[in-house]
């Protein structure tokens, strides 16, 4: 009985501090998803429509970021690249010693590698005649991709994209290793004081579960909202 009381007390006392970590976790996710989107779309377009050199570059990028564990990347960025850059006086106005920045970059650039493949799949899933039709109407390739291909492909990519969200969310918990005060690192701190690692892990698990659930739900809503009425994918066109 005493054990349950202690566990409940540990959760109760640590709750405000750990909840404060949600802002950091959310910041990591939004930053990384955004960065992944920003780089992922051009990478996907380059992969599908670019020449041989472009395709090689995209492949190399994907191999690099998919091939190195996030934990190793975090160390390489935080202790390596960022520490090196912060030696350059001209860059001193950038927050280069912030663990948050390193974590967003690592998670974002890695996510870009995965997101590019999501978008590539979506683009290639569109009927191939569309680009030809657009050309026949006198559109340039760039305009056609921007106005015809991407608006459809991005909609189609949302379900796979929500998968990426849930994976990224869990990867973000690794940011504790470079001192980002997100949910996981705060949970560890509280566990160290209260000596109750298990109940607090349960709490952290519940918080991540909630974030996954809420995020996926929001993306489902988005999917329904931007759906093109009467448009069904594949085979029907």
């Amino acid at each position: 009985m005493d054990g349950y009381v202690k566990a409940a007390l540990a959760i109760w006392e640590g709750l405000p501090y750990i909840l404060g970590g949600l802002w950091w976790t959310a910041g990591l996710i939004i930053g990384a998803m955004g960065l992944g989107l920003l780089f992922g779309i051009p990478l996907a377009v380059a992969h599908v429509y670019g020449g041989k050199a472009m395709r090689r570059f995209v492949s190399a990028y994907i191999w690099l970021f998919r091939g190195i564990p996030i934990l190793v990347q975090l160390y390489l960025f935080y202790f390596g690249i960022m520490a090196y850059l912060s030696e350059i006086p001209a860059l001193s106005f950038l927050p280069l010693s912030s663990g948050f920045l390193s974590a967003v970059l690592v998670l974002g650039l890695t996510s870009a590698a995965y997101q590019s493949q999501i978008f590539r799949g979506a683009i290639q899933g569109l009927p191939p005649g569309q680009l030809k039709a657009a050309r026949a109407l006198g559109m340039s390739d760039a305009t056609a991709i921007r106005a015809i291909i991407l608006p459809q492909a991005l909609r189609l990519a949302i379900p796979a994209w929500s998968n990426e969200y849930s994976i990224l969310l869990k990867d973000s918990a690794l940011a504790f290793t470079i001192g980002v005060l997100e949910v996981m690192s705060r949970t560890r701190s509280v566990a160290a004081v209260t000596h109750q690692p298990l109940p607090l892990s349960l709490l952290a698990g519940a918080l991540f579960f909630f974030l996954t659930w809420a995020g996926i739900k929001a993306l489902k809503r988005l999917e329904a909202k931007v759906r093109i009425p009467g448009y069904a994918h594949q085979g029907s066109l």
Partner: protein
Amino acid sequence: MRKRLGLLLAALAVFVLCFGGLAAAEEKVYINGIDFGFPPFGFVDKDGKPSGFDVESLNWIAKKMGFKVKHQPMDWDGIIPALLAKKIDIIASGMSATAERAKKVDFSIPYYEVTQVLVVPEKDNTSLADILHSGKKIGVQRGTVTAKLLEELVTKPGYKFEVVPYDSTDLSLEDLKIGRIAGSGMDSTIAKEAMKNPGYKIAGTFDAKPEKYGYAMRKEDKEFQKKINEGLKLLMADPYWKELKAKYGL
């Protein structure tokens, strides 16, 4: 044209703000990298504020010696790399001044002494010596002095046990509770903390030189080291030192 002028002004404003910020930041703030999982030396209190023996000590020294200090949580595994990469300026976080670490960093004068002990379940009456020859598993936090001690000990002739590394001492205690390991090795100070939970006792103290805690700093920061050492001496001579020790049960 007007739009462009606005843009130019905005850029100028940003520029000025940046440099204004730089000028304001000229008063040096030293960053203390701290393991927030190491009570009573460093932890976060109920309000999420950095707290602990080392945090309060360094705050006192900073005030006395006229500099500012900020406490930055760091993962223990990366704390010395962070110091060398200038992410932080000092480690005041219950760090043992080992010879190996002293190759990379300079330590302040010692301010605390600890021994290495083995914690076992209260009901267990096996002695430390017995466990070290039993072939049983002993848990320990990765990267700590105790871990190194155990890893060295296990290679010596006659000794027979298995070292199981954990992310934190607390997790090893969880495993000790359910019997996956026979004991957990740790600093005497951590053991004292762990004893606050019922069900554990100390089986014995390892036969090793007691280690001394010191603040770690970069080798090239000689002036800062001088300031810290002077401040530490003042602190240890002050009645506040005794008060602090009593507060944290050291």
